[in-house]
């Protein structure tokens, strides 16, 4: 290091001494910030692992929980999350190309690759919004509590609901009315509240109606919590599965079925699962969001020529460090939340 000090005049040195790592102050501090942020994320993921290991209920399995694609529907295990991972990796690559262009003082290159990075970031955020929405709304079948007290998730194709035929008037519908709107939502709401009794559904206005529904196909129950007759991991198919499922949701009892997820309950597994999902992916998503904002600010600086005048594009390198870090965190979230 001594050899270096010859070419640096004391006025420009950090408080009169040479930088310990021959790195600029900003970059060093960015690294220290990233270390602290990495500790936070590691803490969250380790807490997730801890909870997962000492929960007696069976924990949801990634490829069973996340198996949907927009438009195409179910049956595509993990493809969507893999796509999100790929988007983030690509945007990390475009970022490193922007940094590389900066090292050659190639302003046009920096602008081009930073715009690509920002677009990638928006794509990722959009994907995450879809995934959250899907997670919150849940599946068509929900998680059901069977007669013996066990809980099961349900796989298969849900037969479409065609209509409700009112058989007892309420404050809005008359007898003989045929309801054709908002069927799925009404059905799930009534099932959760225990407003379906022996196939007769009670609608919002207090009227009662019969349900016309197509037959479900390939119905399969997978037990996730022990009951008197069934234990975790047991799979039930066919007529028996159908009977068990519809006996439960048509029982007229509240909370026999749960659709989707919120902070108190979720259809996928233990209560904490939803909370960890929202917190970890949410905290990461917030990092992506702020990363996109910072990238936009730096892009504006690049376009105005601020860094070109300064003689180096180190600001792009620093925001790049943050952006790569966000990608790095996702690599771990992807493994520990979705794969294992």
């Amino acid at each position, binding site marked *: 290091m001594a050899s270096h000090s010859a070419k640096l005049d004391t006025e420009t040195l950090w408080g009169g001494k040479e930088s310990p*790592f021959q790195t600029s102050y900003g970059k060093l501090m960015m690294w220290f910030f990233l270390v602290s942020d990495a500790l936070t994320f590691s803490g969250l993921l380790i807490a997730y692992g801890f909870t997962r290991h000492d929960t007696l209920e069976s924990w949801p399995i990634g490829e069973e929980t996340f198996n949907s694609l927009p438009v195409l529907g179910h049956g595509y295990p993990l493809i969507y999350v893999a796509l999100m991972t790929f988007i983030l990796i690509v945007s990390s690559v475009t970022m490193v*190309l922007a940094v590389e262009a900066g090292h050659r003082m190639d302003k046009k290159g920096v602008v081009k690759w930073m715009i690509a990075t920002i677009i990638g970031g928006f794509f990722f955020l959009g994907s995450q919004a879809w995934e959250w929405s899907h997670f919150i709304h849940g599946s068509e079948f929900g998680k059901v509590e069977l007669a013996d007290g066990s809980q099961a998730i349900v796989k298969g194709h849900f037969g479409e609901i065609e209509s409700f035929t009112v058989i007892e008037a309420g404050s809005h519908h008359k007898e003989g009315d045929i309801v054709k709107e908002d069927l799925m939502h009404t059905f799930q709401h009534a099932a959760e509240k225990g407003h379906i009794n022996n196939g007769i559904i009670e609608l919002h206005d207090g009227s009662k109606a019969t349900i016309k529904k197509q037959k479900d196909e390939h119905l399969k129950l997978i037990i996730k919590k022990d009951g008197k007759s069934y234990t975790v991991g047991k799979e039930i198919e066919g007529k028996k599965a159908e009977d068990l499922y519809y006996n439960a949701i048509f029982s007229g009892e509240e909370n026999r079925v749960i659709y989707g997820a919120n902070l108190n309950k979720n259809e996928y597994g233990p209560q904490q699962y939803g909370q960890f999902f929202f917190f970890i992916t949410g905290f990461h998503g917030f990092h992506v969001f702020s990363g996109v904002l910072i990238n936009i600010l730096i892009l504006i600086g690049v376009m105005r020529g601020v860094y070109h005048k300064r*003689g180096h594009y180190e600001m792009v390198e620093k925001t790049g460090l943050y952006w790569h870090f966000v990608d790095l965190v996702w690599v771990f979230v992807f493994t520990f939340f979705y794969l294992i």
Partner: protein
Amino acid sequence: MKRDDLIEYSLNGHHSDDEGKLIRKKILKVTVLLTAITVLEVALGAYIKQSSGAWPYVKWSFVALTLLKAGYIVMVFMHLGDEKKWLRNVVLIPYALFILYLIFIALCEALAVGDAWMGA
């Protein structure tokens, strides 16, 4: 206010067009590798059930592949591999110390809590 960072340090990263070509080649190589690892992980996750006998091996290979991916991102994309040795150490060593300790203590605690629940 006078800027307190050294422009010499910030210029360290500069390179020529020819060097740039080599660096871009390396970036492309790492990109292909990261994508291939992700595809492999998804394939393993989708086709090997958690109930199967091979699962423990798959699980640990996920961890190994993830660490490999993380290594490439940190060393190549974040250029930590090109920094001074002690900058690298000052970032990695404190992190590793804290996290290894946290993993150790969390595993011990999880076993204790699990035993307490199972015993009850």
